[in-house]
């Protein structure tokens, strides 16, 4: 990135006004951890969005409202009933990066190895964009394309809403990597709800081994109403695995990426089921 100026607004309205005025020349900056991966060399004005009061985690009506500039460290340290993003934050590279990276930045620009989008898909999060109006986008729509394309000049992702895990529900997340600081080769997450011993609802999301994070809807459909267990999970994976295009990263073949995903999805479904049972 080629920054030629730095602006530090102290309120949302001021920031939005600056971003609107600067248009393409503006680059909103929070933790800056992704900027090293951006190849845009055109001159940019960095607009610091850390002082807009967009940090913090609040539980309202069974839903966590997470400010966009809340750091991943804060996600890791937060403890409240039904809070699950600490499990995702734990896998988020190293503490120095967690201290800087924000949930908003991780959601707005998706890389093959991104952690949070997969969890947000599985949790069916809502993403709140503040522009001239406030818009709420569901995760599947938000991650359909590179999310920054949803943002017009002056728009900011201001918060992320994640349902708290309730009784009879379970969530699991797994990131496959070679070392603790590695990019993911395959990331999977599953959320499921049980009713009378059957799967009432389920969401499966995958990333890294596919071009963009995606839900595996065919597998979800195969599981709805089914009795959970290894056989049902394996059958669901079989139904869904070839609905996505698998791409091996970091020296692994496409075939192995597909295989890895099929094993790991069963793993996270099993863990989510255990949690939902209250085990």
């Amino acid at each position, binding site marked *: 990135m080629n920054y030629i100026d730095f602006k530090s607004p102290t309120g949302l309205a001021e920031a939005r006004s600056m971003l609107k005025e600067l248009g393409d020349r503006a680059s909103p900056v929070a933790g800056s951890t992704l900027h090293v991966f951006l190849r845009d060399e055109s001159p940019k004005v960095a607009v610091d969005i850390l002082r807009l009061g967009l940090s913090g985690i609040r539980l309202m009506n069974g839903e966590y409202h997470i400010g966009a500039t809340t750091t991943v460290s804060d996600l890791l340290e937060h403890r409240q009933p039904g809070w699950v993003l600490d499990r995702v934050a734990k896998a988020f590279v190293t503490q120095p990066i967690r201290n800087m990276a924000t949930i908003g930045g991780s959601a707005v620009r998706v890389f093959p190895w991104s952690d949070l989008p997969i969890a947000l898909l599985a949790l069916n999060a809502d993403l709140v964009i503040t522009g001239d109006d406030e818009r709420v986008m569901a995760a599947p729509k938000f991650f359909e394309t590179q999310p920054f394309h949803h943002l017009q000049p002056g728009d900011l992702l201001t918060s992320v809403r994640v349902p708290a895990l309730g009784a009879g529900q379970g969530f699991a997340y797994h990131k496959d990597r*070679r*070392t603790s600081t590695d*990019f993911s080769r395959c990331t999977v997450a599953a959320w499921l709800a049980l009713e009378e011993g059957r799967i009432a609802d389920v969401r499966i999301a995958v990333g890294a081994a596919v071009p963009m994070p995606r839900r595996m809807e065919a597998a979800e459909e195969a599981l709805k109403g089914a009795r959970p267990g290894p056989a049902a999970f394996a059958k669901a994976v079989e139904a869904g695995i070839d609905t996505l295009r698998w791409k091996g990263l*970091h020296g*692994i073949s496409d075939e192995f990426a597909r295989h890895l995903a099929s094993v*790991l999805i069963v793993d996270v479904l099993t863990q989510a089921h255990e949690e939902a049972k209250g085990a």
Partner: protein
Amino acid sequence: MSKRKFNVVNKPLRKIDAMTLALGKPSYVGDFKPNDALIIKMLGSPHAHARITSIDISEAEKMPGVHCVLYYGNVPRIVHTTAGQGYPEPSPYDTFMFDSKMRFVGDRVAAVAAETEKIAEAALKVIRVEYEVLPPVLRIQDAMKDGAPIVHDEPEARAVIPVPYEPKKNMAAQVDMEIGELEKGLAEADEVVDFQYYNHYGQHCPIEPHVSMAHVDRENRIIITTSTQVPFHCRRIVAQTLDIPVRQVRVIKPRIGGGFGVKQEIVLEDVVAMMALRTKRPVYWEYTRAEEFVSSRTRHPMLMRLRMGAKKDGTITGIGLDCLSNTGWNGSQGLTVVCNSGSKMLPLYRCDNIHFNGTVVYTNLPAGGAYRGYGATQAAFAFESAMDEMADKIGMDPLEFRSMNHIKSGDTSPVFRALGEGREGVDQAITSCELARCIKAGAREIGWKRRKPHTAKKGRYRRGMGMACLMQGSAIPEIDMGAATLKMNEDGSFNLLMGATDLGTGSDTVLAQIAAEQLGTTLDQIIVYSSDTDMTPFDVGAYASSTTYLSGQAVQNVAQKVRKQILKVGADMLDCKASELTVEDAKVIKKQGGGEVSFSEIALHSMYSSNQFQIGDISSKIVHHSPPPFAAHFAEVEVDTLTGAVRVIKYVAAADCGTPIHPKLAEGQVEGAVMNGICYALTEEYLFNDKGRMLNPNFGDYKLYTMSDLPEMKTILVPSYEKTGPYGAKSIAEIGINGPLPAIANAIHNACGARIRTGPFTAEKVWRSLQAGGELPFEEGH
């Protein structure tokens, strides 16, 4: 076992540079970069094999802020080797400062020195180059095929010592040795194993990449400050490459931020020297991480065939090891690395029939070089994997099989004479070997008695144990030389000037301990200066596990001489014979009591009072033996049989390094080497495209372990006393890296039955092997 009690050696004292480094005081080359230094950047070849048909540097030269552009058309064309080895070098002369022929992706096209990095990079972009692209050689097995593209077709390429060298066949070196008759040995065997193994590319990954700077002083001498393991070889090779006298070059080595062998090579210094000479300005060149991966040096990948015959009772009847080594675009260290593959592993087990062939081939890939383990790492993988495969065949516990065959104190091996470093070796008997105790201690620590065959294991996650025995050497006998100067100061302290090169190992501390022990003083009284070719005496440098054993003996010798001088002055002052005196606590005392003088009083007396002279001396040492350190390594792993993922649960390294002069540093060497070896075995991997371009030259994609990946590790130092070494010491720095590859391969097999013979042991390889019933068709990797 240690034969005596020590005051300074064999103690974990504070490293003499610990506080300086911990406080971040200026220590490394980059810390001393002058504000007005020009920055050097290099244009690399986009092609693995090509000839430059035209090059235009005029636009770059005209760019404001650019001071010099070097390319093959404006520098001397002097063939040389980049290998920092003794003269005449065993590596072929096959390199030029710049050439019109490109031999790997990243090869030097042109260098720019400019006021800023940005200007230098902009200048590189306006250099116009046209290439005739040639077909590349990208696989070891293709290099010597009829009609293969020739990497070194220039007439100047030659070997400087009498060894086989046929560049027209892409053969950079060859060595062949037979003791007894291998075929006869295999015929006598009840069982024979015959497998191929492949050691992959790996990089040293020093945190400080290659970095050098230079300026020209008022006498027109070139002063190079550089991160090097070989300051004296650097001086000689730079002078040769620039066609200037050695006296015109001074090389200063400050602290080094890691070397592991990669800085036993002249990679930047020729260009910084030439730039300084041309511009008369200080110049500075630091490799990027991508350049460090591609353009510095790597571990030589090797394709190995290991044949072994044994009787049912465990007697080994024949061993054959054929190593086809990929030296990449230049032949640096190629011959000696492959010689070490034979000489550092073949003597480990008693056998009358041994055949060894090492053939080194050129390819259009990154160049191999010196890397911790230096050929022994490669051979240990094949050898120690095959030991397990044979133990399985004859139905013996692999530990028992190794225990009954390994070399012991008093033994010798014909291999020692047959295989040296690029020439015939030296006869030697093993005078210190505690390998049996290493095996015992390591087995106890890992819980070897719990080990069960893989067929007895069930479930998705399966654990297994593997082991490996290892040996290395301590310096290169009859070749390498070290020297030290010691002089006494008025306060009883000493300046110890050494050419020996501390590359982060703590050898300055270790050598100061040896001096202090011999002089009867304390560590804080030794002021170490190393190394500076104008100021310190010659030393070959830090390589071949030589510093403690070789340079340590030079230090011990010079300290003995100085001690004698001190006693002589003391005798004069105390009016007695020197034989009645000894040194203790920085004093000369009468053995029988009744008189003492401090070192300070002695120094003042010799400088100012009577029979005035500088107490001090110089001593050189060449060694006649290379006593091997020994080690037994044990790994316990867990394999996820569904994904193939391998996790090291525990790693035990038991090592015999003689007397550890500084036990904590010795343990640190083992731990560092083992960590280095574990991630080499599991995660480190060069990925190339089909044009020979490395795809992952960065720490994001080329994965090293960090401390958070560290498995439970236990290092056990099993002391012996090597009578030829300083205070009984042998080497320790390299041997530790040789164990993880075979120990983990054997542990994976013990866990789940998958036998992986190509590194690294990725999850996909293990999974595919399990899908194939434990064995995959052999494939050459990268």
